[in-house]
């Protein structure tokens, strides 16, 4: 039955080919459906359910979790959650922006090197990318300790009190976030910068464009693909980060990631955690959508 065809040198029928293909796909597909796709979709109805007295899920339809998320808690209205939402967006944006600012010089510097040194420098960028995030983050706790040179220097300058650690603070969160995500930005950006056609940049300079114009009209359009991948790779995980704010931020600098972690881990309140997760995903998607639209305008310019 089915149409007879030759596929990669094999005389077969469409239906037997499809049967074999499905058989090969089935284990992996089933795994991803059971452990990722279905529970991911389940978060939607779950976010309208309620937590029972023992942490179990009571299936109802209520907007309670979303009300609570906006700050209407049992203790009255509070801005804390809304602030955490805005702070998450802001921290992710600033982190992405700082990473872009640092990644361009690194990419151009690597490009300017000879063959062997180039590989060495690329490896130097890749290694932190693969180093465990918890280790890299607690390492900042060590560097920002009061006994270390940085805190002493700032204390000597009168910027902080002597004997104070520089964490938990917003400053420490940014340090941790940027060092966590910088490799994510450099690697894709470098692949674009490597292929850059220098003559277009020189053309701008010949027309008496300054460095800013040379960048906007010469470099940016050519490196936009790499930049876009870098922005996506940085911004998405930055929005869902909880390790860095947890270890370096403290209670005053909670991000949505911390709230989700608390909901699922500490409070065992899945419905509330589901609502927070969905809001996080939604915010990320909207922000990337805006970037896409804005990015296209840059492309045309």
């Amino acid at each position, binding site marked *: 039955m089915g149409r007879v065809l030759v596929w990669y040198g094999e005389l077969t029928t469409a239906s037997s080919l*499809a049967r074999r293909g499905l058989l090969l796909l089935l284990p*992996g597909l089933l795994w*991803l459906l059971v452990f990722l796709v279905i529970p991911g979709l389940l978060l939607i109805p779950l976010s309208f359910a309620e937590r029972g007295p023992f942490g179990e899920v009571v299936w109802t339809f209520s907007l309670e979790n979303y009300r609570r998320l906006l700050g209407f808690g049992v203790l009255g209205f509070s801005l804390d959650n809304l602030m955490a939402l805005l702070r998450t967006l802001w921290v992710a944006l600033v982190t992405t922006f700082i990473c872009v600012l640092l990644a361009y010089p690194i990419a151009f510097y690597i490009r300017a090197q000879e063959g062997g040194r180039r590989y060495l420098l690329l490896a130097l960028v890749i290694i932190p990318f693969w*180093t465990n995030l918890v280790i890299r983050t607690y390492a900042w706790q060590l560097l920002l300790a009061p006994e270390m040179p940085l805190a002493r220097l700032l204390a000597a300058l009168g910027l902080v009190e002597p004997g104070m650690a520089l964490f938990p603070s917003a400053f420490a969160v940014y340090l941790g976030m940027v060092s966590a995500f910088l490799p994510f930005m450099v690697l894709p950006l470098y692949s674009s910068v490597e292929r850059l056609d220098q003559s277009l940049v020189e053309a701008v300079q010949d027309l008496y464009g300054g460095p800013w114009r040379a960048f906007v009209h010469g470099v940016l359009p050519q490196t936009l693909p790499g930049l876009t991948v870098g922005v996506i790779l940085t911004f998405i995980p930055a929005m869902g980060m909880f390790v860095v704010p947890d270890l370096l931020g403290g209670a005053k600098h909670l991000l949505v990631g911390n709230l989700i972690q608390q909901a699922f*881990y500490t409070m065992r309140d899945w419905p509330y955690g589901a609502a927070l997760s969905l809001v996080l995903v939604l915010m990320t998607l909207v922000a990337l959508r805006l970037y896409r639209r804005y990015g296209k305008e840059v492309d045309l310019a």
Partner: protein
Amino acid sequence: MKISLWVRAVALGALAFLYLPMLAVALFSFNKTRYGLAWGGFTWDWYLRLFQNEAILEATRNTFLLAIISTLLATFLGTLFALGMERHPWGRRFRSFLENVLYLPVVTPDLILAAALVVALGFLRALSGLFEPGLLTMVIGHVTFQVAFVALVVGSRLRSLPRELDEAARDLYATYTQYLRRVLFPLLLPGIVAGAMLAFTLSLDDFVISFFTAGPTSQTLPLIIYASTRRGITPEIHAISTLIFLLTVLLVLSAERLTRRSA
């Protein structure tokens, strides 16, 4: 190409910024002082003590057991998936569905992935009584994000293999299993190894998924390090972190060589 002085300065500064924290950890893993950060002289003691620290030894065992089991499973599932996806004539819609399923774990923040896993495992536990938090649930969690990476790497290798080799094998009357074993598998091996190494490193590197799926008896090194940031970091933690870092360097460099040789 010439680059200006400030580009060089920012680049080198940023690279130093990436390595400064790790250097500090490595430095203090050799510090004699147990409490506080005053420099008390050089010692190997903390590295030697690792071998007597039951908790750390057990966590090391768990970390590698988890990485090996989940990598084997993910490599198997991911390779089959890539074969099914790339070597069969699917319609455009089914294919893009498959691609979306693969990209989902890659682009989802790991925290959301963890949330979905907590929910999945929780419901499965309620249904079956199995899936108690432990090594098994951690393996499930790790495989869930590893499969996609393996399938993507193996798939790209499959696409780069010329069709003529398949056709030549079939023209010489190879059966499907003969063709798989004698032709496709050897050709695909570099891609499978690259995918497996990627999966292995991802597993060693993971904290978030482990944190949400671990049980009391299945602590891994990243979990122990995280817990000790609450209880107080000891120089032993610096020592084990330095070792993990060196292992990462080794893995990255050998993977780099492997891919450059096979390219």
